[in-house]
Protein backbone atom coordinates (compact mmCIF):
# COMPACT_ATOMS: atom_id res chain seq x y z
CA UNK A 1 0.00 0.00 0.00
CA UNK A 2 0.91 3.59 -0.19
CA UNK A 3 1.39 3.78 3.53
CA UNK A 4 5.14 3.59 3.63
CA UNK A 5 6.88 6.92 3.27
CA UNK A 6 9.43 7.53 0.59
CA UNK A 7 13.05 7.78 1.57
CA UNK A 8 14.45 10.99 0.22
CA UNK A 9 18.05 12.11 0.56
CA UNK A 10 19.13 15.43 -0.82
CA UNK A 11 22.61 16.81 -0.46
CA UNK A 12 24.20 19.92 -1.82
CA UNK A 13 27.79 20.00 -2.99
CA UNK A 14 29.43 22.82 -4.94
CA UNK A 15 26.09 24.36 -5.87
CA UNK A 16 24.59 21.16 -7.20
CA UNK A 17 21.97 19.27 -5.26
CA UNK A 18 21.84 15.54 -5.66
CA UNK A 19 18.54 13.92 -4.82
CA UNK A 20 18.04 10.21 -4.23
CA UNK A 21 14.57 8.80 -3.80
CA UNK A 22 13.51 5.33 -2.78
CA UNK A 23 9.80 4.73 -3.14
CA UNK A 24 7.87 1.92 -1.55
CA UNK A 25 5.57 0.53 -4.24
CA UNK A 26 4.72 -2.88 -5.68
CA UNK A 27 5.10 -1.88 -9.35
CA UNK A 28 3.08 -4.86 -10.54
CA UNK A 29 3.43 -5.32 -14.31
CA UNK A 30 0.11 -6.93 -15.10
CA UNK A 31 1.98 -9.81 -16.77
CA UNK A 32 2.49 -12.05 -13.79
CA UNK A 33 0.08 -14.81 -12.85
CA UNK A 34 -0.78 -15.89 -9.34
CA UNK A 35 -0.89 -19.49 -8.15
CA UNK A 36 -4.36 -20.08 -9.64
CA UNK A 37 -3.27 -18.79 -13.04
CA UNK A 38 -5.16 -15.51 -12.84
CA UNK A 39 -3.29 -12.46 -14.02
CA UNK A 40 -2.21 -10.13 -11.26
CA UNK A 41 -3.56 -6.73 -12.33
CA UNK A 42 -1.07 -4.02 -13.17
CA UNK A 43 -0.37 -1.61 -10.37
CA UNK A 44 2.40 0.86 -10.88
CA UNK A 45 3.43 4.47 -10.49
CA UNK A 46 2.70 6.45 -13.61
CA UNK A 47 3.80 9.95 -12.72
CA UNK A 48 6.27 11.51 -10.38
CA UNK A 49 7.16 15.12 -9.73
CA UNK A 50 10.05 16.46 -7.71
CA UNK A 51 10.14 20.02 -6.48
CA UNK A 52 12.76 22.23 -4.88
CA UNK A 53 10.74 24.60 -2.70
CA UNK A 54 7.99 25.38 -5.23
CA UNK A 55 9.98 24.93 -8.40
CA UNK A 56 9.64 21.69 -10.35
CA UNK A 57 13.09 20.13 -10.81
CA UNK A 58 12.10 16.80 -12.34
CA UNK A 59 9.07 15.25 -13.93
CA UNK A 60 8.98 11.54 -14.59
CA UNK A 61 6.62 9.10 -16.21
CA UNK A 62 7.05 5.44 -15.37
CA UNK A 63 5.96 2.34 -17.22
CA UNK A 64 5.60 -1.10 -15.76
CA UNK A 65 9.27 -1.83 -16.42
CA UNK A 66 10.47 0.24 -13.50
CA UNK A 67 11.54 -2.04 -10.66
CA UNK A 68 9.57 -2.76 -7.53
CA UNK A 69 10.27 -0.12 -4.89
CA UNK A 70 11.60 2.33 -7.49
CA UNK A 71 14.86 4.14 -7.02
CA UNK A 72 15.57 7.44 -8.65
CA UNK A 73 18.55 9.72 -8.54
CA UNK A 74 19.02 13.07 -10.23
CA UNK A 75 20.88 16.35 -9.81
CA UNK A 76 19.89 19.96 -10.19
CA UNK A 77 21.73 23.24 -9.95
CA UNK A 78 21.08 25.37 -6.92
CA UNK A 79 19.50 24.48 -3.65
CA UNK A 80 20.83 25.35 -0.24
CA UNK A 81 21.12 23.59 3.04
CA UNK A 82 17.75 23.39 4.74
CA UNK A 83 15.75 23.93 1.53
CA UNK A 84 12.83 21.63 0.98
CA UNK A 85 12.72 18.91 -1.65
CA UNK A 86 9.29 17.48 -2.23
CA UNK A 87 8.52 14.35 -4.21
CA UNK A 88 5.03 13.23 -5.12
CA UNK A 89 3.78 10.34 -7.20
CA UNK A 90 0.53 9.01 -8.57
CA UNK A 91 -0.15 5.41 -9.53
CA UNK A 92 -2.53 3.85 -12.04
CA UNK A 93 -5.11 3.27 -9.32
CA UNK A 94 -5.17 6.97 -8.59
CA UNK A 95 -3.35 6.70 -5.28
CA UNK A 96 -0.93 9.46 -4.51
CA UNK A 97 1.73 10.15 -1.98
CA UNK A 98 3.91 13.15 -1.20
CA UNK A 99 6.95 13.28 1.02
CA UNK A 100 9.54 15.90 1.66
CA UNK A 101 13.06 16.18 2.96
CA UNK A 102 15.47 18.99 3.76
CA UNK A 103 18.66 19.39 1.76
CA UNK A 104 21.64 18.38 3.87
Amino acid sequence: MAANPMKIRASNKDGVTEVKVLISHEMETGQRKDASGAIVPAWFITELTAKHNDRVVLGAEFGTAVSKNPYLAFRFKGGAKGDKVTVSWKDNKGETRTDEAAIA
Partner: protein
Amino acid sequence: MNNQRRTVLKSGSGAALLGILASAGIITPGMALAEWNKAAFDAKSMADTLKALGAGTPTESKDVQVTGPDIAENGAVVPVGVTSTLPNVTMMAILIEKNPNALAASFTLPEGTEANVQTRVKMGQTSNVYALVKSGDKFFMATKEIKVTLGGCGG
Protein backbone atom coordinates in the same frame (compact mmCIF):
# COMPACT_ATOMS: atom_id res chain seq x y z
CA MET B 1 -18.29 3.21 -27.18
CA ASN B 2 -22.04 3.80 -26.82
CA ASN B 3 -22.83 0.92 -29.12
CA GLN B 4 -20.62 -1.34 -27.11
CA ARG B 5 -22.44 -0.34 -23.99
CA ARG B 6 -25.78 -1.19 -25.58
CA THR B 7 -24.52 -4.58 -26.64
CA VAL B 8 -23.33 -5.21 -23.13
CA LEU B 9 -26.66 -4.26 -21.65
CA LYS B 10 -28.62 -6.31 -24.18
CA SER B 11 -26.55 -9.41 -23.85
CA GLY B 12 -27.27 -9.50 -20.15
CA SER B 13 -23.84 -10.87 -19.45
CA GLY B 14 -22.14 -7.58 -18.90
CA ALA B 15 -19.44 -8.81 -16.62
CA ALA B 16 -18.29 -11.48 -19.03
CA LEU B 17 -18.24 -9.10 -21.94
CA LEU B 18 -16.43 -6.48 -19.92
CA GLY B 19 -13.84 -9.13 -19.18
CA ILE B 20 -13.42 -9.80 -22.87
CA LEU B 21 -13.11 -6.11 -23.62
CA ALA B 22 -10.54 -5.73 -20.87
CA SER B 23 -8.48 -8.66 -22.09
CA ALA B 24 -8.67 -7.36 -25.64
CA GLY B 25 -7.05 -4.19 -24.38
CA ILE B 26 -10.00 -1.95 -25.23
CA ILE B 27 -10.54 -1.05 -21.61
CA THR B 28 -7.45 -0.73 -19.50
CA PRO B 29 -7.07 0.54 -15.97
CA GLY B 30 -4.77 3.32 -17.13
CA MET B 31 -7.35 4.83 -19.45
CA ALA B 32 -8.56 7.48 -17.05
CA LEU B 33 -5.16 9.12 -16.76
CA ALA B 34 -4.89 12.14 -18.95
CA GLU B 35 -1.31 13.33 -18.69
CA TRP B 36 0.43 10.00 -18.78
CA ASN B 37 1.59 9.21 -22.31
CA LYS B 38 -0.38 6.02 -22.73
CA ALA B 39 0.39 5.54 -26.40
CA ALA B 40 4.11 5.61 -25.75
CA PHE B 41 3.99 3.26 -22.78
CA ASP B 42 1.64 0.82 -24.54
CA ALA B 43 3.71 0.68 -27.70
CA LYS B 44 5.36 -2.68 -28.14
CA SER B 45 8.18 -2.07 -30.57
CA MET B 46 10.97 0.47 -30.53
CA ALA B 47 9.70 2.15 -33.68
CA ASP B 48 6.16 2.56 -32.33
CA THR B 49 7.46 3.94 -29.06
CA LEU B 50 9.67 6.49 -30.76
CA LYS B 51 6.73 7.51 -32.91
CA ALA B 52 4.47 7.93 -29.88
CA LEU B 53 7.10 10.06 -28.19
CA GLY B 54 7.36 12.20 -31.31
CA ALA B 55 11.01 11.34 -31.61
CA GLY B 56 11.03 10.13 -35.22
CA THR B 57 14.43 8.71 -36.01
CA PRO B 58 16.90 9.83 -33.36
CA THR B 59 20.53 10.36 -34.26
CA GLU B 60 23.12 8.15 -32.60
CA SER B 61 25.27 10.34 -30.44
CA LYS B 62 28.33 9.70 -28.34
CA ASP B 63 27.32 12.61 -26.14
CA VAL B 64 24.60 10.41 -24.74
CA GLN B 65 25.47 7.52 -22.46
CA VAL B 66 23.62 4.60 -20.98
CA THR B 67 25.11 3.52 -17.71
CA GLY B 68 24.46 0.08 -16.37
CA PRO B 69 26.06 -3.28 -15.79
CA ASP B 70 27.29 -5.44 -18.69
CA ILE B 71 25.68 -8.44 -17.07
CA ALA B 72 22.68 -8.22 -14.77
CA GLU B 73 22.23 -11.27 -12.59
CA ASN B 74 18.73 -10.31 -11.58
CA GLY B 75 16.54 -8.91 -14.33
CA ALA B 76 14.04 -7.61 -11.79
CA VAL B 77 16.43 -4.94 -10.57
CA VAL B 78 18.81 -3.57 -13.17
CA PRO B 79 20.39 -0.21 -12.32
CA VAL B 80 20.27 1.94 -15.44
CA GLY B 81 21.16 5.56 -15.89
CA VAL B 82 21.16 8.11 -18.66
CA THR B 83 23.68 10.89 -18.87
CA SER B 84 24.34 13.40 -21.57
CA THR B 85 26.68 16.27 -22.18
CA LEU B 86 24.40 17.84 -24.79
CA PRO B 87 23.06 21.33 -24.07
CA ASN B 88 19.40 22.14 -23.36
CA VAL B 89 18.27 18.64 -22.58
CA THR B 90 14.55 18.78 -21.86
CA MET B 91 13.56 15.14 -22.05
CA MET B 92 15.19 11.78 -21.48
CA ALA B 93 13.80 8.29 -21.78
CA ILE B 94 14.92 4.74 -21.13
CA LEU B 95 13.82 2.12 -23.64
CA ILE B 96 14.39 -1.61 -23.42
CA GLU B 97 14.11 -3.21 -26.83
CA LYS B 98 13.01 -6.71 -25.86
CA ASN B 99 10.64 -5.91 -23.01
CA PRO B 100 6.89 -6.38 -23.68
CA ASN B 101 6.60 -2.59 -23.79
CA ALA B 102 9.79 -0.92 -24.84
CA LEU B 103 9.45 2.30 -22.86
CA ALA B 104 10.48 1.96 -19.22
CA ALA B 105 10.51 5.55 -18.05
CA SER B 106 10.69 9.07 -19.38
CA PHE B 107 11.87 12.18 -17.61
CA THR B 108 11.14 15.85 -18.12
CA LEU B 109 14.03 18.07 -17.18
CA PRO B 110 13.40 21.73 -16.49
CA GLU B 111 16.21 24.23 -16.85
CA GLY B 112 18.83 23.77 -14.16
CA THR B 113 18.39 20.03 -13.82
CA GLU B 114 21.38 18.06 -15.05
CA ALA B 115 21.04 15.47 -17.79
CA ASN B 116 21.94 12.71 -15.39
CA VAL B 117 19.26 10.39 -14.07
CA GLN B 118 19.56 6.95 -12.54
CA THR B 119 16.86 4.45 -11.78
CA ARG B 120 16.28 0.70 -11.66
CA VAL B 121 14.33 -1.24 -14.26
CA LYS B 122 13.06 -4.71 -14.96
CA MET B 123 14.33 -6.63 -17.97
CA GLY B 124 12.69 -9.79 -19.27
CA GLN B 125 15.76 -10.96 -21.12
CA THR B 126 19.10 -9.86 -22.54
CA SER B 127 18.41 -6.77 -24.58
CA ASN B 128 19.70 -3.54 -25.94
CA VAL B 129 18.89 -0.64 -23.67
CA TYR B 130 18.41 2.71 -25.39
CA ALA B 131 18.73 6.14 -23.92
CA LEU B 132 16.74 8.76 -25.75
CA VAL B 133 17.60 12.38 -25.15
CA LYS B 134 15.93 15.48 -26.51
CA SER B 135 18.31 18.38 -26.88
CA GLY B 136 16.76 21.51 -28.30
CA ASP B 137 14.41 20.24 -31.01
CA LYS B 138 16.43 17.16 -31.89
CA PHE B 139 16.45 13.65 -30.52
CA PHE B 140 19.61 11.69 -29.87
CA MET B 141 20.18 8.23 -28.58
CA ALA B 142 22.71 5.71 -27.38
CA THR B 143 22.64 1.97 -26.84
CA LYS B 144 24.08 -0.51 -24.44
CA GLU B 145 23.51 -4.23 -24.38
CA ILE B 146 22.78 -5.60 -20.95
CA LYS B 147 22.90 -9.36 -20.54
CA VAL B 148 20.33 -10.78 -18.17
CA THR B 149 20.90 -14.15 -16.56
CA LEU B 150 17.57 -14.28 -14.72
CA GLY B 151 14.51 -12.58 -16.24
CA GLY B 152 12.56 -10.02 -14.28
CA CYS B 153 9.09 -10.69 -15.62
CA GLY B 154 7.58 -13.34 -13.40
CA GLY B 155 9.41 -16.27 -15.00
